[in-house]
Structure formats: structure tokens, C-alpha cells
């Protein structure tokens, strides 16, 4: 195997011994390999570190010397960083630029950074961060990003203390409010970092609106109304609507996901939209709009997934139910959007029955 033992008795006195040298070479090789593997893995991972962005990730005291201020008592190592006066107004700067100035006064904290829904989404899905809703409780109740925690910016100190107890200071927080024009997300993010010592706070400046836009929840073409996420409740459609109320009742189409039969059929011919029948399989078998695909609203997740696979998530989807005001079609459309990544899904606020009666009249859509 080797004829080297003769060399060993007399290694040169100044040169490092062979074994050490070889170990060093190997260590360097492994480190190099680790860099290569790390970069490749990071590029492939959806949770990977992004190299650019974050010019705002500045630490407030940039030149904080490594030497500790005093030989701090090791007996009290786990003292939380936040300053005592948590109810003192934070007086946040006008924007991220203000924070960058890095006032030397005040404790060390890490300035919150800007982020966007498309960066937050994979992390939120994986449960790697906590979404914090800075809006008023009423706005939160009316609709929020799934999984978000409500923490109104003007909450009393006790609420903040609770929050601090539930989420340790290294929790990755992403704060949002309603939209670009609201200052709450940055304000709250700044306070969480500065007063409560959170070390990984980001704010999503586009807010709830950005989330809705990117998830296709507020991108209804031609409808630029404030979003009303409430499901089209059965209350909205009095049972007596029947034949007289052909004109669209405002409650129904106030939902940006709602469209009319006319528009739905136009979408089908012009955009290649998939027409989905959300009623039960037996109702579908008894009669359906020609060309409609059956996807009963109580379908198992596997059926939804099969549907997504069959048509792809790019094609617009239009869902109809049995009659006006029914929730089934809405729930299918929302599920496709939320859980299966469909880009565009709408429901038709009139149902199959309305379509049939319109077919009976000569003026109906073909």
C-alpha cells in the first residue's frame, strides 16, 4: 500500500508534519465543497437566502465594538432587551430612510425591512413566520391573510406584553396593514423591533390589498370597488326574487369575485375560461350547462387537486351553483384560488336555475 514509513522518523523540523498538512488540505477542500453545495442548495430552496435586496438591513449602531460595555454579569444572561417605557410613543421616523439615519441614542435594534407578498408567501405557507395584522380589529374580522395574528398598532401595553410572551424575540414577524397608503405596518414593525426587541421584523408595505391582488381575490376586471370578502349570504337573495328581479341585485355583484352569466359566457369564449358546476354530481347528471365541468363543492381535496392538474391553474375558472345567492359556487371559487393556486376564479351570482329560465326565453344567451 505504501512505502513511506521511512520518511516519518525525520520530518523537517520547520515544516508542519505531514498528517497535519494533509488534514489542513482536506479541511480546505471540505469547506470549498460546502460553499458550492450551500450556494446550489440555497438557489434551489424556496426558503433560500436572497442575495440582493435589504439595503435597509442596517443595524442601528454600526460601529458597535465587539467589546462588551462592561464585564456584564453572567448571572443575568437572559434579560430581555426592550426598554422599560413600552407605552412611550415610539415616534417612528417618516419612513425607512429615517430609520437608516441610525440615531445613536436608544438601544440597539435591527431596523425592520421591506418585503412583499410573493416573498412572504412560501415562508407563511411553511409556517416559518408570523403574520401580524396591524389594522383595527373590525378590519381584521372582515378579512385577513390566513394565519395572521391581530395586533392593532394602538393596542394597550398589556396586549403587547401578551404578544411578547407568546412569540419569542427571534420570531420572524411580517407586519401588514391595509395597503400602500397606510402607515401602520411600518409603525408597528418599528415598535416591535425597537421597544420589544424583535430581531427579525419585516413589513409588507403593499398590505392586505397586495395579498388580495396577487392571490387573485381583488383583481376582478372592470370592478374597482372596495373589496367585500363576505360570502354572498343566502340573506342577500330573498327567496322571492324569482322571475321579477332579473336586474342584478347590488348585494350580489358587490363581491369582486361575482360575475354575471353574460360575462361568464363571454369569458368562456374569449378567454377560454373553464365553466365549473359546483352542484352535486346527481344534479349535474340531471342537467347542466353544455360544456360545464362537474366539481361538486363538497369534493375531497384529491378531486380538487385532480381538477387543478387537468386544467392547470392559469386558465380562468368560472363557477356556478344551483340558484342565486347560493354559497356553494363561491366556496369552490375561493378554494381554487386560496388552496390550489388558481390565478383567476369567479363565481356567477345567478345559478343554474336562472340560466335555464333564460334559456327558455328567446333572448337568452346561446
Amino acid at each position, binding site marked *: 500500500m505504501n512505502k513511506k*514509513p521511512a520518511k516519518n522518523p525525520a520530518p523537517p523540523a520547520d515544516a508542519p508534519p505531514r498528517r497535519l498538512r494533509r488534514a489542513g488540505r482536506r479541511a480546505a477542500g471540505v469547506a470549498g465543497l460546502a*460553499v458550492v453545495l450551500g450556494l446550489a442548495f440555497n438557489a434551489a*430552496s424556496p*426558503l433560500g437566502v436572497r442575495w440582493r435586496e*435589504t439595503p435597509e438591513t442596517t443595524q442601528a449602531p454600526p460601529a458597535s465594538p465587539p467589546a462588551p460595555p462592561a464585564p456584564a454579569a453572567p448571572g443575568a444572561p437572559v434579560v430581555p432587551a426592550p426598554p422599560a417605557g413600552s407605552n412611550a410613543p415610539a415616534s417612528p421616523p417618516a419612513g425607512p430612510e429615517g430609520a437608516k439615519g441610525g440615531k445613536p441614542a436608544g438601544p440597539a435594534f435591527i431596523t425592520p425591512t421591506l418585503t412583499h407578498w410573493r416573498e412572504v408567501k412560501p415562508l407563511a405557507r411553511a409556517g416559518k413566520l408570523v403574520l401580524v395584522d396591524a389594522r383595527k380589529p373590525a378590519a381584521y374580522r372582515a378579512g385577513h391573510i390566513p394565519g395572521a395574528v391581530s395586533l392593532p398598532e394602538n393596542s394597550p401595553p398589556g396586549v403587547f406584553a401578551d404578544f411578547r410572551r407568546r412569540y419569542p424575540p427571534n420570531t420572524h414577524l411580517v407586519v401588514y396593514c391595509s395597503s400602500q397608503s397606510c402607515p401602520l405596518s411600518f409603525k408597528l414593525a418599528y415598535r416591535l423591533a425597537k421597544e420589544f426587541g424583535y430581531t427579525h421584523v419585516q413589513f409588507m408595505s403593499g398590505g392586505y390589498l397586495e395579498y388580495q391582488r396577487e392571490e387573485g381575490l381583488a383583481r376582478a376586471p372592470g370592478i374597482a370597488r372596495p373589496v367585500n370578502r363576505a360570502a354572498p349570504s343566502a340573506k342577500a337573495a330573498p327567496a322571492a326574487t324569482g322571475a321579477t328581479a332579473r336586474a342584478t341585485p347590488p348585494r350580489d355583484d358587490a363581491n369582486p369575485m361575482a360575475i354575471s352569466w353574460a360575462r361568464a359566457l363571454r369569458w368562456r369564449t374569449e378567454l377560454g375560461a373553464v365553466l365549473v358546476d359546483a352542484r352535486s354530481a346527481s344534479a349535474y347528471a340531471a342537467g347542466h350547462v353544455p360544456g360545464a365541468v362537474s366539481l361538486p363543492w363538497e369534493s375531497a381535496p384529491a378531486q380538487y387537486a385532480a381538477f387543478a392538474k387537468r386544467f392547470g391553474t392559469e386558465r380562468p375558472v368560472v363557477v356556478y351553483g344551483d340558484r342565486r345567492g347560493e354559497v356553494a359556487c363561491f366556496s369552490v371559487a375561493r378554494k381554487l384560488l386560496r388552496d390550489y393556486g388558481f390565478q383567476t376564479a369567479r363565481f356567477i351570482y345567478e345559478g343554474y336555475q336562472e340560466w335555464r329560465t333564460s334559456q327558455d326565453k328567446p333572448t337568452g344567451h346561446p
Partner: protein
Amino acid sequence: MADLTGQTDRPSLSGSEEGRGARALRWALAALLIWAALSKLANPSATLGHLYAYQLPVPAGLLKLAAVTLPWIELLCGLMLLSGWGTDGALLLVAGLVTVFLLATGLAWARGLSISCGCFDLRLVGLPPGSAATRFLESPAAAFLRNLLLAAVTVWLLRPLWRERQE
């Protein structure tokens, strides 16, 4: 193969002489490193968040590189220590790692930072996040002391190298 050469070179100092205690320690160290590596690899972004939390006087680019690379160094070293191939090199790297960890956790402890060390994912051993045990094990103080222990083990495992050097 190359390691075999080393063993025949100096049978009195290398693997063949490794006692049961040393081997057990080596494997324990390997397991710890692999655990740490997998915890970090699961989420590079979170790893970077942990590094930011240390508030080290180090440029962000370097921290990012560390977040991306460190887990892989840990993983490769862990696998090498487990298999016994290139143990010396792996131990040298681990010594370097532990030195860095000692500095970082020691600094955090001295500054009184209330952070999680980001060393291991304790959920993998069934400790719920937020529990008292988790909080203690993740505190900089505990991490620093743990690193001291690791450093001692590493140096002890490296002793054949030092002995050779002194000759």
C-alpha cells in the same frame, strides 16, 4: 483509502489506536453536527434571521454566506466523523467552527441579548417551542457552555495531531 495510509504511517497515533471512548465521542460529535446541520438546512432564511439576531459587527453579505455555507460544513464534517474518513480534516474544521460559535455566543451572552442561539431544532427531539427547557437550551449562555464542551471534545480528539507536532 488515504486515511488507511495515515494509519499505516503511524499506527501508534491514528485510528487504529483510537480507543472506544474516542470513537464514541467522535460519533456523538458527528450526530450533534448532523442534527445541527439539518435544523439549519430546513430553512436558510430563518438561519440568516438567527445570525442577524446576534448583532455581530460583520457585514450582511458575510452573514448571508455563513447562513448558506455553515450548515453544509456541519453536515459534511458530521458525515466524515461518522464514517471515519478524513477525520483529522473534519476535526480541524469543527475546531474552527466551534471557535466562531464560542465568540458569537459569548458576545451575545456578555451583551445580555435575549435571543435564540439557532443551534438546533429542538422540535426534532420533542421539545415544544416556547417551553422552559427550550428557552434555556437556546439561550446564549447555555449555547456558550455547550460550545465550551464541544471545544474540549474536539481538542481532545485532535490530540494525536498535536502529539505528532511536538515530536
